[in-house]
Every structure is written in structure tokens, then in C-alpha cells.
């Protein structure tokens, strides 16, 4: 009887939280509270519980099941981000540039730096012309691969043919 009463209060607490947070699913609760503190019990309130304000960046579950056994709660399903701030395009490009600069360490700066700048210009032009993000990424990867291939062939020829015939010799 005591367990049934506790279960009823727990369910009411969850429903109240769901209604206040305005989630569409029937059983939505704050994932971080339940997942990272599996043995803590939700607080019991007498009267109306205090208003619940989710912090930014919280994770939420889409499905939850109370087993009513050993006070455990099983959660399953996909997680969705509550509120996140995506990086602006300029910062994301900057991060990618850093990665490219790391990848281009074997290529002289007289080639890699203007190439990188031209790629940025090309990406901006493609963006303005209305190309999809996928097409832009694909074009960038293709250009990067072509640079590596051309540079590899150039270095290989340098090694294979160290003596070059120049004009006047």
C-alpha cells in the first residue's frame, strides 16, 4: 500500500513537470536528473510543486517507463537537445581551417596558404550562388584530395628525376 501511494505521487510529480515544461510526449522528464543520479528519488511536494525552469543545454528523453519495482526507472529512446547555440559559420570555418592547416603541414606555405584562402573564397562564392552545404563540403574535400595528389606526384617526380634539364644546358 505504501509503494502504491509512493508510485501515485511520483507519477503525479512527473505529470506536473511535463505540463509545466510543455512537452508533447506523455512521459518526459529531465534526463540529467534521472540518468546521472539513478538512485535519487524525486522530491515529494505537498500542494503544488514549485515552477520548473529547464536550464539551457539540458537533455530530455522522449520515452520513460516506471517499473514500479525497486523504485527504478527505465528510460529508452532517442535524446534531443533542449536548447543549444550553434556555432556561427565564421567560427565553424575557422575550426575547419585549423584542421586544414594541420593536414597541410607537409606542403610549403607558398602553396598551402594561398590555396586555403582561395578555397575560402570559393566556398563563399558557392554559398552565395545557392549551393547546398553538402555540395560545398564535397567540393572542398575534392579540392583538398586533388592538392594532395598533385603534390604527391610532384614530389615523386622530384625524387625519381633529380637531374632536370633546364634551358641552355
Amino acid at each position, binding site marked *: 500500500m505504501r509503494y502504491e501511494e509512493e508510485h501515485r505521487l511520483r507519477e503525479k510529480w512527473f505529470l506536473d513537470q511535463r505540463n509545466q515544461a510543455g512537452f508533447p510526449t506523455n512521459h518526459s522528464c529531465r534526463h540529467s536528473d534521472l540518468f546521472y543520479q539513478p538512485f535519487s528519488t524525486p522530491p515529494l511536494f505537498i500542494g503544488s510543486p514549485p515552477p520548473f525552469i529547464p536550464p539551457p543545454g539540458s537533455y530530455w528523453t522522449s520515452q520513460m517507463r516506471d517499473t514500479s519495482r525497486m523504485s527504478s526507472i527505465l528510460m529508452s529512446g532517442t535524446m534531443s537537445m533542449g536548447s543549444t547555440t550553434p556555432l556561427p559559420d*565564421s567560427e565553424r*570555418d*575557422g575550426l575547419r*581551417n585549423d584542421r586544414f592547416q594541420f593536414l597541410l603541414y607537409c606542403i*610549403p606555405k*607558398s*602553396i598551402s*596558404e*594561398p*590555396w*586555403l*584562402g*582561395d*578555397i*575560402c*573564397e*570559393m566556398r*563563399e562564392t558557392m554559398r552565395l550562388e545557392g549551393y547546398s552545404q553538402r555540395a560545398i563540403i564535397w567540393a572542398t574535400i*575534392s*579540392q*583538398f*584530395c*586533388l*592538392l*594532395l*595528389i*598533385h*603534390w604527391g606526384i*610532384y614530389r615523386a617526380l622530384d625524387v625519381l628525376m633529380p637531374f632536370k634539364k*633546364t*634551358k*641552355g644546358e
Partner: protein
Amino acid sequence: MAFTRTSNLETLILAALETSELYGLSIIERIKETTGQSLALGGLYTTLHRMEQKGFVASRWGESTEVRQGARRRYYQITALGQQTLTETRQMLVKGLNLVPGLASGEALT
């Protein structure tokens, strides 16, 4: 007469640089406007590097814009040796075209 061999791409780049100093993307645009050929940036810069070592082109660092995110442009211009090589290549192409039956002279191509 000693003749310096150049690849097709090198000849195209020399022809594009004949009139003005250009950087990578503008070289590609000019070649595309003139011949309709699309070049890869990677291939272009490797070829320019090789041409610079051969002495066909000279380069200098240019400005950096916000779009380029700190990367400077590199401007290339044709050298005297590059100009001479281009002239020789042009003359050789004209002579070669004269051998093709049906083409009276290559003057229209110069």
C-alpha cells in the same frame, strides 16, 4: 634552337599571365573564360610552384581579406624567360598547325 618544353597547363597559365598579374582563382577564371576548361586549385598551385622554380613566373604575397580568413593571396606574374618560352611555344604550335592538311596557316590563331 633550344626549346624549353612546357605542358599544356603551363602554356595556358603563361598565356593567362601574359597581360596582367593574377592570383590563383583569377587565373582559373581567366582560363575558363578563354578556353572553357576548369582547373583544380590544387593542380594549379603545384604547377605554379614548379613554374616558379623553372623561372617562368615570379610571385609576391598580396593582401588578406575577411573572406579568406587570414590567408594571403599570392600574385603571379610572367618573367622574361616565361614570355620567351610562351612565344616559342606559340611559334611551334603555329608551325605544327601548318602541317595539318586543310589549315592554310595558323595566323588566325596567333
